[in-house]
């Protein structure tokens, strides 16, 4: 069909010729330069030895197959591996955070209970003291017995309170250690995130920033927990002292109720 319309062919030929004529002065000098170096390079190619080219063909094919099978380009880049490891670390840190948080909560509850116990024992001690102080010069035997029993009870309560305070102290120490570990992890995480930020580009930088923020958050939380643990420890020590005091008081009262006729 196309050969039956020579005018169309002529038009196409004219257009192609116009394009070529337009490009010729621009592109042709480049072609001349190309030709000059190619003429030089071609001298080094064997002119009558097809075996040489066949050997190179086989070498390139084999190398290409081996290289592209062994390194197909799907292996995860190391900086992405780093991000994955960092994510795992963040998850572990989150678990630790939860654990430490729970411990802190429990300890807080224990402190509250200890405070209640302290109040109770304190009240009892006060009552008993009042009773002992108000006692008549000559206490009846029955009343003295009752007083002794109360003093013994107080002593037991004080002992319990002391045990609780000791327990609390140990827990507070443990919490402090956990908080310190958490703080270390947060610091490590922060450093890793910084490293990742330096290594990665574009998309990963955002992730690294996120990690860094999370690490900062963890660090703050760890600091808070550490302070909380310290506070608990101080409180536990205070309780211990108070328990000791109460115990002594109870013993004193017991002694007094044992010898009602002294004073």
């Amino acid at each position: 069909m196309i050969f039956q319309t020579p005018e169309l062919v002529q038009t196409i030929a004219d257009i192609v010729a116009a394009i070529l004529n337009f490009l010729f002065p621009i592109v042709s000098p480049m072609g001349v330069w190309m030709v000059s170096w190619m003429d030089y390079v071609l001298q080094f190619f064997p002119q009558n030895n097809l075996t040489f080219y066949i050997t190179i063909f086989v070498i390139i094919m084999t190398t290409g197959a081996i290289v592209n099978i062994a390194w197909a380009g799907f292996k995860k880049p190391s900086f992405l591996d780093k991000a994955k490891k960092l994510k795992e670390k963040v998850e572990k840190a989150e678990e630790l955070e939860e654990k430490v948080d729970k411990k802190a909560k429990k300890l807080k509850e224990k402190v509250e209970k200890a405070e209640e116990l302290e109040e109770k024992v304190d009240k009892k001690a006060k009552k008993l003291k009042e009773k002992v102080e108000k006692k008549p010069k000559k206490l009846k035997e029955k009343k003295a017995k009752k007083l002794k029993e109360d003093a013994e009870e107080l002593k037991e309560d004080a002992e319990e309170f002391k045990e609780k305070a000791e327990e609390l102290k140990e827990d507070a120490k443990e919490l402090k250690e956990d908080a310190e570990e958490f703080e270390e992890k947060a610091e490590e995480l922060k450093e890793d995130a910084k490293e990742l930020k330096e290594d990665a580009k574009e998309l990963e930088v955002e992730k690294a920033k996120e990690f860094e923020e999370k690490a900062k958050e963890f660090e703050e939380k760890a600091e808070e927990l550490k302070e909380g643990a310290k506070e608990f420890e101080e409180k536990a020590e205070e309780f211990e002292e108070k328990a000791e005091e109460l115990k002594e008081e109870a013993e004193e009262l017991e002694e007094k109720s044992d010898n009602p006729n002294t004073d």
Partner: protein
Amino acid sequence: MGRSFNIVKGLIYLSIYITTTMVIPYFTFTFIKEMQILGVDIILEQPDYERIIYWVSAFGLLISSCAFFNYSSPKQSIRKGTISLIQIILNCLYIWSYKFSGATEVRFEIVIELANLGFIAVNVQNMVMLYMGIYFLTIVLKGYDFFDFIINRKTIREKRYKTQLGGIDKA
């Protein structure tokens, strides 16, 4: 997908390049070596016919093997950039080998009933020059690609893994 897909892709391009750089030129030159138009024998006076075929085969083999390497390599990889640059340079040499072997100045002898009436010489050297100029621009582009792949290696690799956190290991 994956490794085998890349290799199959490489083999497909290998066959395409063998066809276009070796088989078609071979048949073309063999066909025009002795042809008859309207009862007039036009004999390709090309004493270096063998020579043309030699260069076509030599560079055809090199270009085809490079095409295999190039198309079986991962996208935007440095090795792909390197091999495609080599391939384009070999392409230039291949085109120029036509001239080198005398194929850009083809002489046809016109023979009617054993009487030699003269010859027609077709000189396509200017055409080849123009073609070379275009190839020069292609080399510049491939060179740019090559440096781009080197400079933006990390970004390219990140994008390749679509970077959900930690990336997707397709291996």
